[in-house]
């Protein structure tokens, strides 16, 4: 089956006065219809930049020196603002981290959703438009929508706002939805509700979803496949099962080990030592080497390629090179173990 979205060797740079920042480095992945791909990583690893670069919503300082973005087999890498405007909302759409600031404070929720609908169907009549807005609000679980469409964002709670943002994102029936940390700014009970809502809508509409997060718990809840990002690179990618039960990259091990669930009853939480590298001056070799207790000499010399483990599972670590002695992973322990 042909993927809805295919990204090949995408690199994103920012030109700043102090130099060029390599925010995304040689990232490749594909997304199939009706699939949820989670992109996991720490703050600043390039997750959000990756999403925004696909929608071409990056500031003017950003450059894409290499890579191709294919949507339904069509290369959109060279598209200009005018062509992108036509695609946004209809082909792909996005939900943001902070619903408190993502809505226009001076417009009613109903008007903002209506605007999103009308962009793609400018000839829609008043009644049909109203009907569609009510339908969208019901879809995202806003109760008594007729009453609430006349309210302003400041009348809504965080969860309700995120639902409204989602309604706007879904207004054009997008084939791909990017959810950029959609639950980070919400409190825990609401987080679960929004995650379930995302999953439910995704099943109902068959929208392919890229779910960006740093919360592995959320990933387990919604994702079909998982990509782990570190310092602008995808270091491990595979089905959720493979990444959770048979992780191969030391960074993934570290992430999984630091899940609070796994250290219940212990005094301290395991952490990954050190800090993410400065993307302005990335170190030579593997960027994770200096934080990696399993680092090999070659890690400081040469970046590892993505080694295939199964047909769907890849990891970029020299530990997978056949010449490397076997290492027992501290977590996971086999797919069916």
């Amino acid at each position, binding site marked *: 089956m042909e993927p809805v979205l295919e990204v090949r060797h995408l690199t994103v740079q920012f030109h700043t006065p102090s130099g060029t920042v390599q925010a995304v480095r040689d990232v490749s992945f594909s997304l199939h219809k009706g699939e949820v791909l989670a992109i996991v990583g720490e703050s600043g690893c390039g997750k959000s930049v990756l999403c925004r670069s696909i929608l071409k919503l990056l500031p003017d300082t950003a450059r894409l020196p290499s890579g191709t973005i294919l949507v339904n087999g069509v290369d959109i890498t060279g598209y200009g603002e005018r062509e992108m405007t036509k695609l946004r909302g209809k082909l792909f759409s996005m939900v943001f981290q902070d619903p408190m600031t993502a809505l226009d404070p001076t417009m009613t929720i109903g008007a903002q959703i209506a*605007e999103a609908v009308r962009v793609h169907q400018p000839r829609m009549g008043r009644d049909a438009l109203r009907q569609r807005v009510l339908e969208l609000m019901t879809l995202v679980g806003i109760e008594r929508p007729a009453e609430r469409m006349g309210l302003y964002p400041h009348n809504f709670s965080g969860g309700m706002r995120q639902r409204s943002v989602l309604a706007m994102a879904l207004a054009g029936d997008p084939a791909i939805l990017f959810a950029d940390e959609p639950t980070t700014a919400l409190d825990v009970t609401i987080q679960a509700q929004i995650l379930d809502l995302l999953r439910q809508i995704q099943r109902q509409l068959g929208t392919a979803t890229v779910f960006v997060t740093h919360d592995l718990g959320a990933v387990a809840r919604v994702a079909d496949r998982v990509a782990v990002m570190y310092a602008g690179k995808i270091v491990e990618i595979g089905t959720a099962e493979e990444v959770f039960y048979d992780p191969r990259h030391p960074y993934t091990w570290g992430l999984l080990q630091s899940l609070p669930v796994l250290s219940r009853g212990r005094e301290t939480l395991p952490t990954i030592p050190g800090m993410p590298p400065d993307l302005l001056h990335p170190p030579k070799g593997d960027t994770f080497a200096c934080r990696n207790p399993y680092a090999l000499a070659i890690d400081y010399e040469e970046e590892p390629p993505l080694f295939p483990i199964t047909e769907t599972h890849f990891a970029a670590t020299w530990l997978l090179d056949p010449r490397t002695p076997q290492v027992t992973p501290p977590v996971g322990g086999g797919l069916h173990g």
Partner: protein
Amino acid sequence: MKRSILRSIGIKVLVFVVSLLILSAAVFCVARLAPGDPLVSYYGDRVEKMSPQERAWAEDKLGLNDPLTVQYVRWLERAVQGDFGISYQYKMPVTEVIAQRMGNTLLLGGVGLLLIFGGALLLGSFCAWQEDRWPDRLLCRAGTLLSCIPEFWLSLLLILVFAMGIRWLPSSGAYSIGGEGNVGDRLVHLILPLTVVVLSHLWYYAYLVRNRLLEEVRADYVLLARVKGLPRRAVLFRHCLRSAMPTYLSILAISIPHVLGGTYIVETVFSYPGLGTLSYESARYQDYNLLMVLCLLSGAVVMLCNLAAQAINERIDPRIRGERSGMEQEVRTP
């Protein structure tokens, strides 16, 4: 709800009246403490030849011999009845003198404000749209330079070039002698003063609009609007401008007096027969009654503009207006 509205209006009216009273007392005292001889404005050069007895008689006639408080109370009593006294210089009721000149100033100030308001909005939006490209950079430089030029100097420069140099436009007045009813003649006289009023204020507000818009453009909701598929221009003009409007309108309302102050200077340089020249003369020649009314008028305009600014804000930004109703709605929806 209705009662609270009445209450807030009542409070505003009260504050307005008290402020005017304080202003009147202050101007009354300051004007009289300032050096100068009010008799000169009434009697002209004859004052120099007056004997002390004549002077005393004249001062007594104008009521200038009594203590300040007595004079003020007497002025207040009459003012409340609508009698603001006569102008020493023009020898007729102050209100009449002002009424004759008011139209000219309203024309200059009103048209100037409209042009500044509209022009700044257009110019600012254009700059924001062209952010950091050459048209924006050019306008920013030129605008900053222009707004640094003092009004009186710019006026003189324009007079020098357009009235003295190429003789296209008249250098002073509101109309040629005998051309009072001629619209074209009025317009020709208006061009130079209006240009100065607009040019000296335009960039300040345009820059304000530009920066406010650019602040808005960086807000998250702009990203969402673009994700919806709205083109950049639509986002800028539909969402950002709307969000920037309350600030702009309220600053504009507050700055109406500032612009009017500018027209006062411009009027003086162009000898344009408006309230500006009148205020200047009345202060210079100790024309107390005229000065009082002009100051109170300006003060009232300032306060009304501030009130208008507040009202505009409440009207446009639902968060200010909704403080109360919004909370009620929140309670209604569990």
